[in-house]
C-alpha cells in the first residue's frame, strides 16, 4: 500500500481549453455582447495592468500551525497588501504536513527544502521570515516590526502574547494605528476558551456543524466533519472582514487601530442558517438530513449511474420542468408525481414523507442516467444541476479552465504549481497571485535589512543565537 503508484501525469490541462470562438460560436452579437464585455473587464490576463486595492497595507501574519490566520492573510495578499509571514525558527509546523505523511507528494524548492500542499497554497504572494518569540531579542525585533505594520494577526494560546509583553495592550501603546487580530477555534476568553494545540475541526464539532452534517442515523449516517479545515477558512474570512473594516474606520474616522477577535466557531455559528432561530422558536434541534434539504424539495444530491448529481428546483416553475425532463424517458414517473394531490402545492412538499416519495421516484430515473446524461437533459430545461465532481474533473471542466479558476504559477522556488486562483475577479482592482510561496526564512535578509536596518553581521549573530 505504501508503494508510490506510477501515475502518468499529463501536463494540465490534459484537454485543451476552449477558445473564445468555440465558446461564443453561433451566438448572436446582441446576445454575446454582455458576456464579451464582462470578459474584457475581468480577464485575469489584464490583472497586472491594473492597480491593487491594498498595496499600502503591511500585514504581519504571525500565526502558525493553523490555516485560519494564513487564509485570512491570503485574502490581503491577493488584494495587494504586503504580507510577511513571521514563522518560528525552523518554520511553521504546517509546512511539514502532507496527506498521510507521503513526503513524495510534497513540493520541493530549489534550496533543498520541501513543503506540503496545504501550507504552500496559503503562502501565496507572502514573504517569509523566521523569528523566535521565546527569546527577549526576538520579542524586541517583533516590536520594531509592529511599529511599522498596519496589521498583526496571531494565534498563540489565549493571553500568551500578553504575558510575553507583545499583546494588544502593549503593542497598541507603541503603535496606536495597529489593527491587532487574534484568531483561533473557540476564543481567547470564556469557559471553553482555546487550549494550546486546539485545531480545526474543534470548532466544527463545537458549533453544531458536525452534528448536522451527514445522513441521519436511520439512513446509516453519523455526524460528519468537513473534509477540509473549512471552519478555519470561514473564520479566517470573518477575520479579514474585521481587519478590513478596522482599517477603513482608521483611515476615514479615528486614526487609531483596534483589537479584533475572530474564531472559527464564531464564523460557523454566524452562518449556520436557521439552527438558532428554530431552536429559539420551539426547542427544535436541527437534525442531520444527509444530502437532502429540510426546507426545499427538490434540492438534493441524488445517486445516479456513475456517481451523484445535484438537482435544485423547489418552486413550481422548476418543479414541473424537472418532471417534464424525467417524463421524456419515463412518462409513468412524471405521471406518478404530477398526479399526486399531496405534491401539488409547493408549501406541502418539504414534509419528510413527501421528500421520500420525491427522491425515491427521482432515483428510478437516475439509475439509468450517468451524471453527464442527467445533467445534459436537465440543463436543456434550464434546471440547475451538476454532477458531484472529483478534482480531476474539477480541474478539467472547460468552463473553469476558460475562466481561469485555476492557474499555473511558474514559481522561482517551486517550479510550476497549479493552484486555485484568486476568487476576486475585478474590473479595476482584481485580486491576483504573484508567487506561490517562500522557503522558511527566505526573506530574512530583505525584511530585516529593509525594515529594521540590520546588517549582515547583526543577522549572523541573531542566527547564531537562534533568534532568527
Amino acid at each position, binding site marked *: 500500500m505504501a508503494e508510490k503508484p506510477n501515475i502518468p501525469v499529463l501536463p494540465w490541462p490534459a484537454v485543451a481549453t476552449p477558445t473564445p470562438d468555440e465558446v461564443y460560436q453561433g451566438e448572436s452579437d446582441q446576445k454575446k455582447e454582455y458576456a464579451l464585455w464582462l470578459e474584457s473587464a475581468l480577464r485575469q490576463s489584464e490583472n497586472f495592468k491594473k492597480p491593487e486595492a491594498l498595496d499600502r497595507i503591511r500585514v504581519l501574519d504571525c500565526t502558525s500551525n493553523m490555516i485560519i490566520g494564513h487564509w485570512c492573510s491570503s485574502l490581503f495578499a491577493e*488584494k495587494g497588501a504586503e504580507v510577511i509571514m513571521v514563522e518560528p525558527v525552523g518554520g511553521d509546523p504546517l509546512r511539514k504536513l502532507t496527506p498521510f505523511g507521503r513526503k513524495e507528494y510534497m513540493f520541493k524548492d530549489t534550496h533543498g527544502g520541501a513543503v506540503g500542499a496545504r501550507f504552500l497554497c496559503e503562502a501565496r504572494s507572502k514573504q517569509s521570515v523566521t523569528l523566535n518569540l521565546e527569546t527577549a531579542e526576538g520579542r524586541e525585533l517583533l516590536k520594531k516590526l509592529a511599529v511599522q505594520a498596519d496589521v498583526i494577526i496571531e494565534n498563540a494560546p489565549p493571553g500568551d502574547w500578553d504575558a510575553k509583553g507583545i499583546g494588544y495592550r502593549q503593542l497598541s501603546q507603541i503603535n496606536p494605528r495597529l489593527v491587532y487580530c487574534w484568531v483561533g477555534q473557540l476564543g481567547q476568553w*470564556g469557559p471553553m476558551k482555546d487550549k494550546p494545540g486546539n485545531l480545526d475541526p474543534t470548532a466544527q464539532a*463545537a458549533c453544531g456543524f458536525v452534528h448536522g452534517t451527514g445522513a441521519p442515523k436511520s439512513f446509516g449516517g453519523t455526524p*460528519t466533519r468537513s473534509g477540509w479545515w473549512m471552519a478555519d477558512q470561514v473564520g479566517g474570512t470573518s477575520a479579514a472582514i474585521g481587519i478590513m473594516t478596522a482599517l477603513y474606520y482608521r483611515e476615514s474616522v479615528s486614526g487609531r487601530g483596534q483589537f479584533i477577535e475572530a474564531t472559527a466557531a464564531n464564523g460557523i455559528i454566524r452562518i449556520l442558517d436557521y439552527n438558532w432561530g428554530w431552536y*429559539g422558536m420551539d426547542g427544535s434541534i436541527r437534525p442531520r438530513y444527509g444530502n437532502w434539504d429540510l426546507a426545499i424539495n427538490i434540492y438534493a444530491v441524488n445517486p445516479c449511474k456513475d456517481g451523484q448529481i445535484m438537482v435544485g428546483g423547489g418552486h413550481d416553475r422548476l418543479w414541473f420542468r424537472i418532471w417534464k425532463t424525467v417524463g421524456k424517458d419515463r412518462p409513468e414517473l412524471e405521471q406518478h408525481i404530477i398526479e399526486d394531490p399531496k405534491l401539488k402545492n409547493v408549501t406541502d412538499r418539504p*414534509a419528510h414523507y413527501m421528500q421520500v416519495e420525491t427522491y425515491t421516484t427521482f432515483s428510478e430515473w437516475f439509475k439509468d442516467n450517468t451524471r453527464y446524461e442527467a445533467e445534459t437533459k436537465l440543463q436543456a430545461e434550464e434546471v440547475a444541476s451538476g454532477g458531484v465532481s472529483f478534482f480531476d474533473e474539477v480541474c478539467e471542466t472547460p468552463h473553469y479552465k476558460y475562466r481561469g479558476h485555476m492557474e499555473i504559477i511558474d514559481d522561482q522556488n517551486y517550479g510550476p504549481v497549479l493552484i*486555485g486562483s484568486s476568487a476576486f475577479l475585478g474590473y479595476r482592482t482584481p485580486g491576483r497571485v504573484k508567487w506561490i510561496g517562500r522557503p522558511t526564512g527566505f526573506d530574512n535578509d530583505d525584511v530585516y535589512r529593509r525594515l529594521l536596518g540590520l546588517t549582515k553581521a547583526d543577522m549572523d549573530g541573531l542566527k547564531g543565537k537562534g533568534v532568527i
Partner: protein
Amino acid sequence: MAISFEEYCRDVFDPKKVFSKPEPLKGLRVLSCTQYILGPSSANYLAELGAEVIKIELPRRGEPMRHTTPFNEPLLYPLSKWMPDKGTGLGFFGANHNEYFLSVDFHKPEGVEIVKMLAAKADAVCENYRAGTFDRWGIGFRQLSQINPRIIYQWMGGFGGWGPGRKRASYDILGQAQGGCFSVTGWPGPGKIQGYEGKFPIGLPSKHTIWIMDYWGGMMGAFQVIAAMYWRDNVSGVGDFFEYSQVQGAQRHLSDAIALYGRYGLVAQRWGNWDPLLCVHGIIRCGKSSYPGSQFPAEMEEGFCLVSAYTDADYAKLMKAVGRDDLAKKFPTHDDRVKAENQPAMYEALEVWAKDKTKEQVEEFMHKNGINAQRVMNAKEVSTSEHFLQRGNVHFIDDPTFGDVFSQGPVFMASETPPRHKWAFKPVGADNEYILSKLCGFSKAKIKELESQDVI
C-alpha cells in the same frame, strides 16, 4: 497590568456594550438587489457593520427565501402588510439583519427609475440576478457607474456571466458539488476499499449542512466591497465592478487538492471523520447517548467526540490513559501514525475504549489527562452553552416586529467598532414610506399611487 488578560478581553469584547460604541461603516449606503443567500448575506455583513442597507425585493411575496423554511413549519408573521396571514420562513433568517426593506418591481419603468435615484446616492450595489439582466434593464454597472462613478457594484452568482457555462443556473449545493467539496467530505465508499474492509463506516460524498458556499461566499464579497471602499476613499475616488462566482470560491477553498492534481495527478478522496494530515486528530463514536430518556432522535443516538493528540508527547499520554501502551510503542512517531494503513487501528482502539461512555465523559476524561478533545454539540447544546452565550455568538434579539427571536451573533468581535444586530428582518416593503420619502422625495400621494400600480 491591573486586570488579567481574560478580564480585559471580557471587557473590550463585551457584547452588552456594543451599542455604546460607534459603527465602522456608518454613513455608507448599500443597495441589496438580491435573493436566496449568496447576495443577501454579503450585504448583511455590511449592515452588521453599520452600513445603511436597503434590500429591494419584488412587491408582495418578496424574495424566494422568505418561502423557505424547514418542513415548511416555522414561520414569522406577517409576510407583509398585504399578506398578513402568510409568514416568512427561517431560510430568510441569517442573511437580512439590520436592513431596510423596500419593494420595487424592476420590470416596470417606474421601478427602474427608483433604482436609479437610489443608486445616485449609494456607495455599493450587491446584485445576484442572472448575469446581464440588470444591464438589460438599464441598471447594471455600465449604466449606474455613469450616474454615480463612485459606485462599487458586485455581481454574485454560480458560474459567472462569461465562458462556456455562463448560462448555467446555480444554487449553493451545486457550488459545493461542482467545486469539489462533496468529493472530499464523508466516509469513503460506497463499496469495498481494498485493504480497509471493516476499518471504517461506508459513506457517500456529503454535503455541508450549511448553505456554505452562499454564506461564506457572501463573506468574501463583503470583504471585497470594504476593500474597494478603502481604495476608493483613500486612493482613487472611483468605484469598481466585481464578479464573484461561488463555484470559483469553492475551488479557491480547496486549492491544495488542485495543486496535488496538477503536480502529481492525485485526486483527493474522502477520509471521513479522521484527518489526512494529522493523527490522532479525529472524531470518535462514544457508545452511549447523553440523553437516555429523550424522545428526540437527535438526542437518542450515541454521542461523538473529537480527540486530538498528534504530537508524540500527547499521543503517548493518550494511549497510556486509555490503557493502550502497546499502541504508543507501535506508532511512536507522527510519520508512523499518519499513514493511511495505520490510522484505523488507533481510532478503533479509542472507540472500543469509549464504548461505555457518553461524549461528555470522554471529553472530561481527556481534559483531565491533558488531551485536547471537543464533544460534538447539537443545536440545543450550542444554544444553551455558557461559552457562546457569554460571548454573544448566539443571543436573543428584541425584535420590533417579531418579539424575542433567538439568533446567531455578528461575524467577529472588535474592541472599538463592533458589529451588532438591531433587528432580525422586517416584512416585505416595511420601509417603503421611509426610504422613498427620504431618498426619492416622494409624497404620500405618490407612494399610494405607485402602490396601486403594483410598482412598489
